[in-house]
């Protein structure tokens, strides 16, 4: 097996750990101020900006995708990101994130890794699906 093929096999077999994050109003406000999207509902922490899932993933997971996947951060790009909004998320909700490697493939001297994360709230409802495509240049 060549290096590329063995790397793909290695990536496909990675098991990612679940984690739980409690949504805090102060983190909603902090994100809104950082983006410069200061509508009242965000500043009050009553509603979540569409990209709040990133806060759950980074602060909840505490590890970058590169570290989890054993990739060289200097050669890694975030290629695509998608969120599907299936239910409500509110401050105080305890969100458990279950992540899997959904797809791994090699194309044009690059490795593409699709990470799918399911966000489950404290009532066991699936509220959001996040899909990130991570690209590692060979």
């Amino acid at each position, binding site marked *: 097996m060549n290096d590329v093929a063995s790397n793909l096999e290695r990536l496909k077999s990675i098991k990612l750990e679940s984690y739980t994050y409690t949504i805090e109003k102060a983190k909603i406000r*902090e994100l809104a101020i950082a983006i410069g999207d200061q509508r009242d509902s965000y500043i009050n922490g009553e509603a979540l900006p569409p990209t709040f899932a990133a806060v759950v993933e980074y602060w909840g997971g505490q590890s970058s995708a590169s570290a989890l996947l054993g990739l060289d*951060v*200097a050669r890694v790009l975030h290629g695509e990101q*998608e969120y599907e909004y299936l239910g409500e998320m509110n401050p105080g909700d305890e969100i458990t994130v279950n992540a899997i490697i959904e797809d791994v493939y090699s194309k044009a001297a690059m490795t593409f890794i699709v990470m799918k994360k399911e966000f489950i709230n404290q009532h066991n409802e699936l509220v959001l699906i996040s899909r990130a495509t991570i690209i590692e240049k060979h």
Partner: protein
Amino acid sequence: MNIGYQFETLQKDEITHTQIVRYAGASGDFNPIHTVVPFAQKAGMDDVIAHGLMVMGFIGQAIGDWVPVKDLAKFGVRFKAITKPGEKINVTGSILDETEDRWICEAKASNEIGEVKVQAKFEVRKK
């Protein structure tokens, strides 16, 4: 709302190092390529690069100006080019298509000379 409708352009202020540091703290993405200038220079760049997710956040801000965020069903982006401090981003968008229960829309975040940084597709639930 109708197919072909152009949403009002959102003009963002110039991105600053401070804003990027704030975004790092808010999001929890502390990759030094975004926040530490000497690290970026060692990687062969002249300055740090903004988080792609922050620019996605700008598009999220525009979407919130255009439609009720609670009606947003799907929001996906492709990161096309890096963004640096000093750049000014505009977000444009339009309605491409519709299904029985959704509007299918697109948006772009570009700098002042029209370089597309992030390309988005999003779907909005009809009432």
